[in-house]
Structures are given as C-alpha cells and as structure tokens.
C-alpha cells in the first residue's frame, strides 16, 4: 500500500522537503520546505480512510498552518529592528510545529486517530525540519526556549501517567523526548542528530511490535496471544526507549546529561533525570500488566515468528548493534 504511486509521491515529497531545509540558504526557502512537508504528510494521515483520520488531518493542517504563519511573520520581522521579538515569534511557531509543551494538545488528538505508520512519521520524521530550523536560531540561554524545554520534559512525563491508550503513552513519551532533543540541539547539531537517530530506532522497534499485534489499549496486553519471548522483546524495547542502561536508549541521555552538568545547567539536568523516572514508570506499568497473569494463557498462543525487519530493529534498539556485546 505504501508503494502506491500517490503515497510514494508524498513520501518523496517529504524527503525532498527535508533536503530543502537542510540545504536552504535562507529562512524563506526553509519555510517552503516546512510547507511542503506539511502538505505531503496530509495524504499519509488520510491513508487509514476513517472519519477520525479526516478529523486528524484537518486539525493537523490548521495547527501547522498557524505555526507556519508565525514562522513567516517572525522571519519577516528580522528585516525590521525587532530582533528579539522576531526570534520569539519564530521559536513559538517552531514549538507548535514540533508539538512541544505547552503547545502539544494537537499531537494527542491526531495520534489517537492515525494509524501506526503515520504515527511513527508524526513523532519522528515530521520533527526533523522544525528541529533543523530550531538549531539555527535558539539557545538554552533564551528564557522562552528554557521554558519550552522544561515544559516538554515535565508535561511529557506527568501527563503520560494518566493515559491508558498505547498511542497516547507513546505520544507523551515523544513530547518528553522533544525536550531532550531541543536541549541536545542547543549544544550542537551532531549531538542532536545522534539523539534523534537513536530515538528513531528505539521508537521504531516498539511501534513495529504494537502494530504487528494490534495493541491499542493498556488492558489488551495480558490477553494478547503472542509468545513470552516476543513479550520480552517488547519489554526490552520499551526499556530502551525509556533510556535504561544497558540498552541503546541510555547512551544519548547519558551524553546530554553529561553536557548539561558540564555547562552547569543543573536545573535542566535535574528535571531530565526526575522525569525520566516518571516516563520509565509508565512504560513499566504498560508491561507489568502483561507479566502479572503468571503465565496463564487465556487464548491460544500465536506461534508466528516476528519478521526479520522487526527482529533487526529490536536487536539494534536493545544491543545497539553490537553483536559481541553479550559475549
């Protein structure tokens, strides 16, 4: 289905928009890349063909358009003697685009209504362009940027505690990760890119498993008909996403924490550590229900093995791609 001509065109357009933003010499060309990205993503959201998907696509279009207007106005104000206000408007627009707290409410409603593949694209690919622009203009010394980072970390952690839908849990976890990503980008592009790639790998692993077994609610896990070995893979994938050592997800968090401490950003570091614990708690709560039944199988276990792509992704996420790690 994803190789149909229309969707393939949209996927190519999204990749083109990313290349456009990376190579753009000016803010206006970057804005064009953002617009292309938004418009090309809409058919992917509509691939599910349900009324909720239509609703999600309209909400996505409206919020992204508002953010684009703010970015354009902010860019135009750079030509006027309002440099501070221009940066603030630009940052506001980019925060809305990213779904960073406190401008995150649209992400939840769209995540609930979309399929797993568009959800993965929304939480990862769609963040590339705004993050690239963010790297150019923002730094942790700016008060508004500081507030957005702290809000994302705190809101992503605390609000995820009350969720029962798996999609909502992953969405709030993504909002928390946006805080980490923004902090990483404020240090350097390479640190941000490294964090992003590892986040993409760990999230892909979890989403692949949820997609294969069609898990949408926290209560479905105990009643799932898949083998304990597959459950363990999901458990490790979630722990990796939560940043627990010795999994892959721990490495970028360690790196960023080290940088925050060396730059004396102790408040940010403290919030990051405490919110990581909260995020890990709701991942564990997701999985404990699957293990609490004491091995009692209420349905016939599915003996189908996981596909190779899923296994490869899981091994990357859990071991970091080092096969001799456990030797």
């Amino acid at each position, binding site marked *: 289905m994803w190789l149909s001509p229309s969707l393939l065109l949209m996927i190519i357009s999204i990749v083109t928009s990313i290349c456009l933003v990376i190579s753009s010499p000016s803010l206006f060309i970057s804005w064009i890349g953002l617009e292309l990205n938004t418009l090309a993503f809409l058919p992917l959201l509509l691939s599910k063909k349900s009324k909720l998907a239509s*609703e999600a696509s309209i909400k996505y279009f409206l919020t992204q358009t508002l953010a684009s207007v703010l970015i354009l106005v902010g860019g135009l104000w750079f030509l006027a003697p309002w440099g501070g206000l221009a940066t603030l408007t630009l940052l506001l627009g980019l925060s809305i685009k990213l779904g960073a707290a406190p401008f995150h409410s649209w992400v939840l409603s769209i995540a609930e209504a979309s399929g797993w593949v568009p959800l993965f694209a929304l939480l990862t690919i769609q963040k590339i362009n705004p993050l690239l622009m963010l790297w150019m203009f923002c730094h942790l010394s700016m008060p508004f940027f500081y507030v957005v980072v702290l809000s994302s970390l705190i809101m992503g952690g605390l609000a995820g505690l*009350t969720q029962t*839908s798996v999609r909502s849990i992953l969405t709030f976890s993504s909002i928390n990760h946006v805080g980490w990503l923004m902090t990483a980008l404020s240090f350097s592009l390479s640190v941000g890119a490294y964090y992003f790639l590892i986040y993409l790998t760990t999230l892909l692993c979890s989403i692949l498993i949820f997609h294969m077994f069609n898990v949408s*609610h926290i209560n479905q896990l105990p009643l799932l008909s898949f083998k304990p070995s597959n459950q363990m893979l999901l458990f490790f994938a979630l722990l990796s996403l939560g940043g627990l050592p010795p999994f892959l997800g721990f490495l970028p968090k360690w790196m960023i924490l080290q940088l925050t401490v060396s730059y004396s950003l102790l408040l940010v570091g403290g919030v990051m550590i405490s919110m990581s614990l909260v995020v890990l708690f709701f991942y564990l709560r997701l999985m*404990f229900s699957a293990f609490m039944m004491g091995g009692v199988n*209420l*349905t016939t276990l599915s003996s189908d093995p996981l596909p190779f792509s899923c296994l490869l992704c899981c091994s990357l996420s859990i071991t970091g791609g080092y096969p001799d790690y456990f030797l």
Partner: protein
Amino acid sequence: MYRFIANKLLVPSTCVRGLDFPGVFVPSTSFHEYRKSGYVDKTQKKTSTRESIRNGLKELKQEIKNWTAEVKDGVMMDPIMAMPLPGEVDAQWFFNQNTNFDDWVVTADSDHNEGHSTCSFGVSPVGKGLFSGNLSTQLVKDGKVKNAGYCNIKSIRPLKSFKRDSFHDWSAYTHLVLRVRGDGRSYMINLGSAGYFDINWNDQFHFALYTRGGPHWQVSKIPFSKFFMTSKGRVQDHQQAVPLNRITSFGITAADKINGPFRLEIDYVGLERDPTHTEISAYEQYKTPYFYAGY
C-alpha cells in the same frame, strides 16, 4: 432578506425548515451552524454574561475537586484491576429504583410538533428500567413533515471537570451486552460518535435489536463490528468500525413504523471483551486493491 434567500433558493434541508436562519449564507447541505440542527429548547431562559459568570464561580470549587479526583484516578489507575476478563460483563448502566432518569434524554416526534408519538422512561413494576409509550405514524398536517413515528432515549454526553466534553472509552471491549425484556417489537440501538467538526456531529452507529415478547428476559450480546454507520439517519456508503474510544452517547429508538403501544424493560447495559472475536467491521467495502487491473 437572508430568510428569503434561505427559504427560496437554498437546497431544502432540515436545518432551514421554518427556523431562524443564521447570519451566514452558505448554499450547502453539509454545513451545520448549530449542533442540534436548529431544534432549540425554546423554554430555556437566556442568561446575561454577568449571571453566567456568577453561576460559574459558584461551581468553581466543585470543578476543582472534580479535576483533582480525575488526576488522582489517572495516576493511581491500575491496569490489572481495570482489565476486562473474558466472560465478565462490565455494566455501564443499571436500571432500578435508584437510577437517576434525569441523566437520560427522552424525545419523541411530538416534542417539536412533528408527530403524535409519546413516550416515557422510568421504573417498571418489577424495579427495572421501562421505556414505554405509544408510536403513531400519523403525519402532522403542516406540509413539511413527510415521515413520523419515533421515540428515543439517549444517555447524556459524559463530561470531565470544568464542563469539558468527554467520551466513553470502550476500546478494551468487543461486545455490547443488554439484558432486556421486550414486547416482540424491534428497536434500534444507537451509539453516538459525534466528531470535532460539524460534518461529523451527527455520526451514529446503529444495530437493530429484535425482542421476544415473552415473559423471559433476553441477554443480547452484540459485537461492535456489526454496527453500521449513519450520518443524520442516512446509511453511509463507506462503512467503518465503531471508534470505541470516542463514544458520546448510547440510545435506543422505537421507530418500527407500527402504530400502537410499545414497552421495553431494561435491566442493564454492559460491555464484554471476547478475545476470540477479531472482526473489525462486518461490512465489505469492495475496495480495489492497489496495482489491480491497471489502477
């Protein structure tokens, strides 16, 4: 001027039939200005802004308490305790002497002078819920009504703290279970799934429930996959699964085009999870696969 244009030039639709026309001129049958399509409660008094603010401040303390309770419930939520086990029915509504029947909206076509049917919803002699009344397909002679004869009960939309609209989240379940005692007539079970935008405000999912007329109760276990989608009563070509995390209301309609009294006793309405039921939607869509026949 607007009323003239609306009544004479617009495509006839229920939203402009003899009602105050809004200040927006949009020649479309899919645009809905009002959520209730113009069927307003004329007995409701208009309150001033100052009075609304005063009433709101009185409720502020209770709403803050409700919000605190919601946050506590969310944080302390135990997925094990809330997990539906196969074979167990989680009752959503019990009907007995202690039921607050004000939480149910009872309507009939006679409410807005569009028919002669009457109905009520209360306690039956055996202490269960009783939805009864008289259906009449007799038309009102106003030249506008073409069909008549319905009675309906509907649950009110769940609200969160600060009067925010919420949904029933039934995504963990696969079946709707009703214990009813009917009179042999057929009733329509309605699940409201009102969306955010106006085009989805009137989306509902329906299932026809056939009742036995005998003295024995019947337990109807209806899979959610068997419900079909309508918008403003019109069955949609493109059918889809019930969005179980976005249910706004549950209702029962008596409209089987048979004149006479009807009586439906309801013990409870509940939900059940059957892990062996994997059907998503019972209605085939006849969708051509990609790359098929040169498409």
